[in-house]
């Protein structure tokens, strides 16, 4: 039922009825009680997250180099000679800040996916900026990470303009509660931030099928630039993706977290990073209030503490599927 005021706002009552979670509720009810401060460093430093993931045998993009000093930067290019493409990112960056993707080389130059070229001096300059802390939280000195560049699976490149789409899964107590795919558009310039114009595509936890897509908060059915259909796309190896997400919960011990993954054409799903403060836009992409998914998990945790990871996934797939069953 549409009301005149829906053009400008929704009443709190309406939002509550739909189970929409606001920042205050996320922080006070899910984030603060479940994420002890001391665990944050496990996810805020990507080197640390990667080390934990490798301990658990999770697939992550192979690390080519870790740069921590000016000397490392000066010998960086020699060590990178064998790699045609790579990604350089700050270890403590957030929200995709400072991530540089090199698609291929052209003689002495490096070419980004957008086609713009970088000289080797410019590449070194970017590395120095990362080390100086330009992109890290609080501006402290940082390390730069050079790693394998994911070649996204064909199904994903079909629905993303240039940038590699990533999958975000939000989890509570180790139960996957909601998933979305973030795909770049021309407007978002290869970035996957929804408020910069990227697409948010909701994914059904049970099947891995995309169910709905939003662009700037409005429902769309086709990619605005590529015109490809966005709904009903099957994510490959969905079960493995859920397993990776659940393992991320176990290794970080964070109660409330978001796991970002990419699907490589040859290597399959790779864990990219874990976020201890996942945003709320995922609700918009799915058209489901997070509370409708979080509350069943809170209840389940009370009745079934210490459930195994397989059982947790089964619970989520059965009860937190795109169309929520009437009775739990």
């Amino acid at each position, binding site marked *: 039922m549409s009301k005149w005021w*829906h*053009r*400008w*706002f*929704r*009443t*709190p009552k309406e*939002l509550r009825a*739909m189970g*929409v979670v*606001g*920042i*205050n*509720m996320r922080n*006070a*009810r899910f984030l603060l009680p479940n994420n002890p401060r001391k665990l944050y460093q496990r996810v805020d430093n990507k080197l640390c997250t990667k080390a934990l993931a490798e301990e658990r045998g999770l697939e992550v993009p192979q690390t080519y180099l870790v740069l921590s000093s000016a000397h490392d930067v000066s010998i960086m290019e020699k060590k990178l000679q064998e790699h045609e493409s790579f990604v350089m990112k700050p270890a403590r960056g957030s*929200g995709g*800040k400072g991530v540089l993707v090199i698609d291929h080389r052209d003689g002495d130059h490096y070419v980004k996916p957008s086609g713009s070229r970088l000289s080797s001096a410019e590449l070194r*300059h970017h590395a*120095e*900026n990362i080390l*100086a*802390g*330009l*992109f890290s939280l609080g*501006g*402290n*000195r940082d390390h730069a990470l050079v790693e394998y560049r994911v070649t996204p699976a064909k199904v994903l490149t079909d629905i993303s303009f240039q940038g590699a789409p990533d999958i975000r899964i939000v989890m509570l107590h180790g139960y996957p509660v909601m998933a979305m795919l973030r795909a770049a558009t021309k407007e978002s310039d290869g970035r996957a931030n929804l408020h*910069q114009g990227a697409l948010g595509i909701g994914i059904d936890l049970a099947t891995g099928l995309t169910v*709905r897509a*939003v662009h700037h*908060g*409005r*429902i769309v059915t086709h990619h605005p630039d590529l015109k490809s259909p966005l709904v009903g796309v099957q994510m490959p190896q969905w079960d493995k993706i859920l397993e990776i997400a659940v393992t991320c919960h176990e290794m970080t011990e964070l109660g409330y977290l978001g796991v970002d993954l990419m699907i490589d054409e040859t290597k399959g799903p790779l864990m990219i990073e874990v976020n201890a403060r996942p945003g709320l836009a995922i*609700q*918009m992409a799915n*058209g*489901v*209030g997070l509370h409708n998914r979080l509350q069943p998990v809170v209840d389940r945790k009370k009745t079934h503490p210490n459930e195994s990871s397989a059982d947790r996934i089964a619970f989520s797939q059965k009860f937190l599927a795109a169309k929520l069953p009437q009775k739990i």
Partner: protein
Amino acid sequence: MSSKTRLILAVMVLCLTGIGIAIYKNRKLGVPLWVGEQSTSWLVEAKVSFLSAEEGPVTVKLSLPTIAEDPNVGQEAGSLGFGNFLDSTQSGLKSVWSANQISLDTHSLYYRVRIPERYKTGGSGEQVKGPAPVAQSPGFSGSTEKAAKDLIDRSRQVSSDADTFFTHLFLQMSQDSTSQETVLLRRHYEREEKVSDENILYTMGIDLLQMAGIPARLAHGVKLDPAAGPQEPLKLIEYSDGATWTVKNPLQPNVSLRSENIFVWNRGGSSLLEVFGGENSKVVFTVIKDTISLERMDNLRSAPFFAATILELPVSERAVFRYVVLIPLGAFVVVILRNIVGIPTLGTFMPVLLALAFLEMKPAAGIPMFAVIVAVGLYFRFLLSSMNLLVVPRVAACVVIVTLLMVVMSLISWKLGIRGVSQITLFPMIIIAWTIERMSLIWEEEGKRNAIMQVAGSMLVAVVAYAFMKIPQIQYWAQYFPELLLVLLAAILLIGRYTGYRISELHRFRNFSES
């Protein structure tokens, strides 16, 4: 005990304590709860400080205003280790402190007096007591005498009595400061009499008045302006037209002293402060406005510790608390606007500091100045960014740039004839530098729209906080019922557990639909 019951318990204890003390003050001590129900009075504190010359006897004499003779006026003298009494001498009332053996140190003595607002404190006419005063001519000679006569003659031509003569004489001395006679006389005082530059106007003025047959002498006043902070005594000149004595400020010779602006501390020609056995003595005045009546105030000050709170402090310390007690109110506004309304700001409590600066300089002047500094600072920050500086040097460079900007802005606006721009220094400089730094990062990472939105948000929060802190009732409560801050604390704790939507989220999720 769950965290929720603990919270509710804490909130209840805080509210009960805060409101309880407030009610006690209201009922038992009779302090009115509402700002309208009070009478205003000025509390003036004189702080005498001196360095004891040697370990010997010391006597300090401070001239007091005539109001101190009134037994109903609240007054007191603070003096640790000194004997103190009021001495009624021929030239007026004096507070005398004395000690036989004091340590080699800087000593401070306090004298406070409470003046009802309607009390006539200005320099209006006072009957001449005793024999009529006789003007004594100063010993001028030769060219200086000629110059002085010329000055006096010129003033006399355009004046009709002592009042108008006073006005014209001082107008001439200040406005035609480059005229031959003034320059000559000034040089005479500088060289011959060794009068310091700031005192020349007074010494010379009194001499010229005397020479013209008008008895004159020095008086001292206090500016009744709480924002002025600790102030030096204001020098005034008292002159007689034969029947009455009148006090005027030679810096504003055409304005009669107004009792609501200036309180005449001592008149009658006796020196303001005399210290025997000490050196480097000086007296500094602090003024605050009390909006509750005298006897209530006395009740409060003699009340138990928990009720008296900051009112027990010396006046100069209380003046500091005038703003300090307002800071929690600003923080409260920030909490509401961020967690309930959802306005994005740069730095959580930066708006509070901005609001405090606005309290002194008015937002209408503050906002444009802030905008200019941030805009220009941002421009320089982008020039810096190509140099790859580390964070701390980068912010330090910003501090230097902001400082220079303040200097330049003050200079330019001074030249343009805009006054009051030097108030720009009230802005917390380090905070501005950080604002510029963070804004430039957001600018690069999230686009200029976000950066400008956040600065505008901070500004809005600062203005709202300013408006809130400016409400007289709020200021009154903060000053006389500081225990109500406990209630504020309870409210902040409650908001800390608020899990409902922010108002901005109602807009953000407007397109939300279940499909």
